[in-house]
């Protein structure tokens, strides 16, 4: 398979006081592949995704890094190239559908507007079909409704319809189900999976929830304190996690006897800039040694997986 998107040496920091936020992140997405980025708040997962589309918030600057899409470098400097890729080739859906839809505009109009902006067919029939495709029961009513008239799940469906209308090669989804109820979350997961297979597009799914990601993607990137901690297939990561952090996360999912202590990771995730010269997980790790505090583990490739740890876990977890 060909590489669709590659991110190389991405480093981000705050503009004002140069605090490190994302530290040397590298990954690739192949054509048709679905990749998940898992991490806690502050791990840099969302910033990484935003930087792909050149959407970094004010106050965050990119110190280094190159994003290549379909063999072509896309960067902030080349606004035209960036604009061509945004929406047309790479679409993004966000966590909260209420804040990403315009409350003053009917849903149908918004979708038409998006289509027109990208030079696509904005016929009402096309939009209605897109709405029907994402499982909205009465597309005609939806077309002429305002976002507030819809539930969170329906709004997120409308957002997905809008993002798929342009048939992108890559869909970036930033925790699109976190604000939704569990049963609705399940429907949206199935919907995205269905659409991905039907349109043979690639998916980059960002979440704090390893279990959600596991059901949807081929490859998982685990981020911790602004760095990539581990990369591997879902099966490998779940059965033989190498990084103690991944092992801890999976441990907290393992079924425990009723009311017994759950496996937890003691302590709190650090801010990336406070651990720039050591292993970010050192203070919470079971395998920690002095080496982890003196130097920073690099990401080592081992077959088709990689991990950044001096003392990886050896035994299988499940």
């Amino acid at each position, binding site marked *: 398979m060909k590489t669709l998107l590659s991110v190389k040496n991405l480093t981000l920091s705050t503009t004002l006081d140069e605090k490190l936020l994302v530290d040397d992140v590298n990954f690739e997405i192949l054509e048709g592949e679905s990749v998940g980025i898992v991490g806690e708040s502050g791990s840099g997962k969302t910033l990484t995704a935003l930087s792909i589309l050149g959407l970094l918030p004010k106050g965050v600057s990119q110190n280094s890094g190159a994003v290549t899409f379909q063999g072509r470098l896309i960067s902030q400097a080349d606004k035209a190239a960036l604009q061509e890729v945004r929406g047309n080739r790479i679409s993004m859906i966000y966590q909260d559908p209420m804040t990403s839809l315009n409350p003053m505009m009917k849903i149908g109009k918004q979708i038409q507007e998006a289509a027109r902006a990208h030079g696509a067919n904005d016929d009402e029939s096309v939009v209605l079909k897109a709405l029907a495709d994402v499982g909205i029961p009465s597309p005609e009513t939806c077309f002429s409704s305002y976002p507030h008239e819809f539930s969170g799940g329906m709004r997120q469906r409308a957002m997905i319809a809008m993002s798929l209308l342009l048939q992108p090669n890559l869909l970036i989804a930033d925790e699109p189900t976190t604000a939704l109820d569990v049963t609705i979350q399940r429907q949206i997961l199935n919907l995205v999976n269905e659409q991905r297979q039907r349109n043979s597009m690639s998916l980059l799914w960002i979440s704090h929830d390893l279990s959600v990601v596991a059901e949807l993607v081929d490859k998982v990137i685990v981020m911790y304190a602004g760095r990539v901690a581990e990369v591997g297939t879902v099966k490998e990561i779940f059965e033989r996690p190498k990084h103690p952090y991944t092992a801890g996360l999976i441990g907290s999912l393992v079924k425990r006897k009723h009311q017994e202590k759950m496996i937890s*990771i003691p302590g709190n995730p650090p801010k990336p800039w406070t651990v720039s010269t050591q292993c970010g997980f050192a203070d919470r790790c079971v395998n920690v040694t002095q080496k982890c505090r003196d130097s920073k583990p690099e990401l080592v490739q081992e077959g088709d997986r990689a991990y950044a740890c001096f003392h990886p876990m050896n035994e299988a977890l499940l």
Partner: protein
Amino acid sequence: MKLEVRNVTKIYQSNSKERTVQALNGVSFSVEEGAILGIVGESGCGKSTLSRIIAGLEEPTSGEVLISGERRAGIPRFIRKSSKRPIQLVFQDPYSSLNPRQTIFNAIEEVIRIYEPTLDGSALEARVFELLSSVGIGKDLSHRYPHQFSGGQRQRICIARSLAAKPEILVLDEPVSALDVSVSADIINLLLDLQREFNLTYIFVSHDLGIVKHVSDSIIVMLAGEIVEYGSWTEVMDTPKHEYTQRLIAAIPNLDKLKIKESGEQ
């Protein structure tokens, strides 16, 4: 201390009385002393309204809440205020439930002053430190402000603050939903420890059946203001009767299921 909720109904009205929303409809259940009751349901099902009514923050439109057989809801607030308050509430968001301009020492001291007005000086200080240490916060941190703590630590402080009133029943409204995955397991462990240590009764409200089934002795499933399933945790999990409960159970992420999916693909 037994908690009983009898036929509680709550109807919200718009100011013009034109529109009404029925948040709760004929909800009844009881919890024995020292037991953990889990309440699950999606947003808008009335679980937060119910927990606020149990805690006495809202009055039911009809029905009653009894603690040890004594009526609580539906009696004038000024009478209730004078009696001791055995129920405390822990909220979802530890970022907004602490006063940002108050050190955590003061936040807890304030509560103790209400419920134990005779304590002062070093005895008061010792009680604050005791509460903080029971949730794993060292006394060297007590002069700090909420923003200097992480989400998990703040939730610990909120729990300490609710324990300062010496409650017998703790209503936990989504206590771990706002926390990171690796931190929430820690808080659940702490809550289970505290429950045993102080023989507390918990009302554990959450949208996440995975966590509710882990901590609860009995489970209530709510949908659109009504109880659709109520039973011991094994009954609800093993033989769910309502279709909605079955859907909730199917939505719990399950590692075994994942493995089957993986091996099935090969």
